[in-house]
């Protein structure tokens, strides 16, 4: 599934990464790696620390211990602009930028590359255009954000991250609040970005079905256990998912990778 012909190499790795808030440790000594050209889903139950992990990887949250390395550089020691050239992020929530045109918003992704006034070169314009094209948002470019649906808005935010032209792309629940067709489309867009542009893409989701069907790799956060990571098929076969999401009301069918809700 993940074989795209491109050589795969680790773009982002963590060394003995311990994350959390103050005394409250969410993850201990994790060694995570994200490889180029692959789409990875970050799964785990509510409150387990998916957002904190993503924010720590992105350099927005200080780790309690350990390092995050992107292309050999320690993310938390980098200057803000340099970091922004390595990692782009799409956070949850709809931005309150109603009067901003889609094209302008996507253009914000060029900020780490433009001069202090944010002036665009031909190259910047080309990058923005192809980012809009890649996410299927090109037809929206003259619209203002307040006229976009939630699905369109998410595409625009992904295009913005894409315009940032980073080897690593992190997204916090990009499919939350979307209906089924939109969820599928967003994840297919992410898959295309990973496979065709050789980026390492990691997104958190509660949608196991989509993770299993469309992602190359799974990173699973488990309570009181270390991080599990591996191929999607392996995740299914080894039973780690069934174990992690086991509860009295849900049965996980490993053969199909689907949930059955028990009355």
């Amino acid at each position, binding site marked *: 599934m993940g074989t795209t012909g491109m050589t795969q190499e680790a773009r982002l790795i963590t060394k003995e990464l311990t994350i959390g808030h103050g005394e409250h440790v969410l993850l201990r000594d994790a060694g995570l790696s994200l490889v180029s050209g692959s789409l990875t889903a970050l799964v785990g139950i509510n409150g387990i620390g998916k957002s904190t992990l993503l924010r720590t990887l992105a350099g927005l949250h200080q780790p309690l211990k350990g390092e995050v390395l992107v292309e050999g550089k320690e993310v938390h020691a980098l*200057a803000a602009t340099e970091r922004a050239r390595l990692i782009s*992020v799409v956070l949850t929530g709809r*931005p309150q930028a109603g*009067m901003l045109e889609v094209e302008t918003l996507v253009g*914000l992704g060029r900020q780490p590359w433009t001069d*202090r*006034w*944010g002036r665009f070169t031909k190259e910047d314009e080309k990058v923005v255009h192809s980012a809009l094209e890649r996410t299927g948002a090109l037809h929206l470019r003259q619209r*203002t954000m307040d006229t976009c649906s939630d699905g369109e808005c998410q595409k625009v935010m992904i295009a913005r991250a894409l315009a940032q032209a980073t080897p690593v792309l992190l997204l916090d629940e990009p499919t939350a609040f979307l209906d089924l067709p939109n969820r599928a489309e967003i994840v297919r867009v992410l898959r295309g970005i990973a496979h065709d542009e050789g980026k390492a893409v990691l997104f958190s989701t509660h949608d196991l079905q989509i993770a299993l069907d469309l992602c190359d790799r799974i990173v699973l956060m488990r309570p009181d256990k270390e991080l599990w990571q591996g191929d999607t098929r392996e995740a299914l076969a080894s039973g780690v998912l069934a174990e992690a999401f086991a509860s009295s009301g849900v049965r996980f069918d490993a053969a199909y990778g689907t949930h059955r809700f028990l009355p």
Partner: protein
Amino acid sequence: MRGTVRWLWAFAAFGALFAMIGLVTGSVNLSLAEVWNAVLHPGEDTAIGTIIWRVRLPEIATAAFAGAGLAAGGLLMQTLFRNPLAGPGVLGITSGSGLGVALVLLARPLWAWMPLPQDLMMTVAALLGAIAVLLLIVLADRRVGDGITLLIMGLMVGYLCSALVSVLQAASGAEALRGYVLWGLGSFGGMDLPRLPWIMVPVAAGLVVAITLIKPLNALLIGDDQARSMGVPVDRVRRIAIWTTGVLAGTITAFCGPIAFLGLATPHVARAFLRTGDHRALMPGSILLGAVLALGCDLLVRTSASGTLLPLNAVTSLLGAPVVLWVLLRGRKWARPA
């Protein structure tokens, strides 16, 4: 962007037109030729020269700078707090300056020993007042981080400051009181040529800084963390924006009084014309439009004046309050929940 440039030229043209009308009209109506002649020969001690150089030019310059500065400060606050109803007046910043000014004007015996010109004292006091309130608001924003609470806090700070001013008023003499009440009505007049730099230099500096913030302000539109992820030093930008607003609102309030609504309403009028949230258009647009609106208000104040002066604050409120109501009623574009 081309439409934007055209609007900016239109704003500038209106500004020039209003300034010209301002030079020609007043208690004595002059012809354009007379005005032109007086402007070209600043040294001549004629009646017209005196009117132009001692009264009208300073008033026009003050109005233009005050309007531009308040509008830029309003835009900075609205973006910083992601709140369409933020502005120097609403957040209590001008009240803070007002308290500072009251301390200088009303409690003069306390300062009499200080060998400083009153202009400097007023500027510094208004500035300190503005920045104290701003810091309070920043703290509150960090703790509660919700727009409504912030606005209510601004109102409360406003009440608190005016209560303190009332106490000062009760304890001060009639002459000082008169000065303070006149100041409170707001006016662009009363600045003569030598005093102009007191307002022009800080405001010009504030405007320059506001313009250099255009790029990070745009990033802030999609959220602090999202901006951070694009390499924006958010905390530094916030600090700079807050000090800039403090300097702008503080200086202008010190010399022109607590001018209502200009800072809050102008960015909205600019948005309505320019139809964008992009600060590359909005910042210069608000600055120019602020100057235009202030010049317009000043004209209304002066032309209405046949003996009695219409208070500037009444005019800006009459024009500004409906704008804010309109924003509230059609606030879809701004107030959309995240």
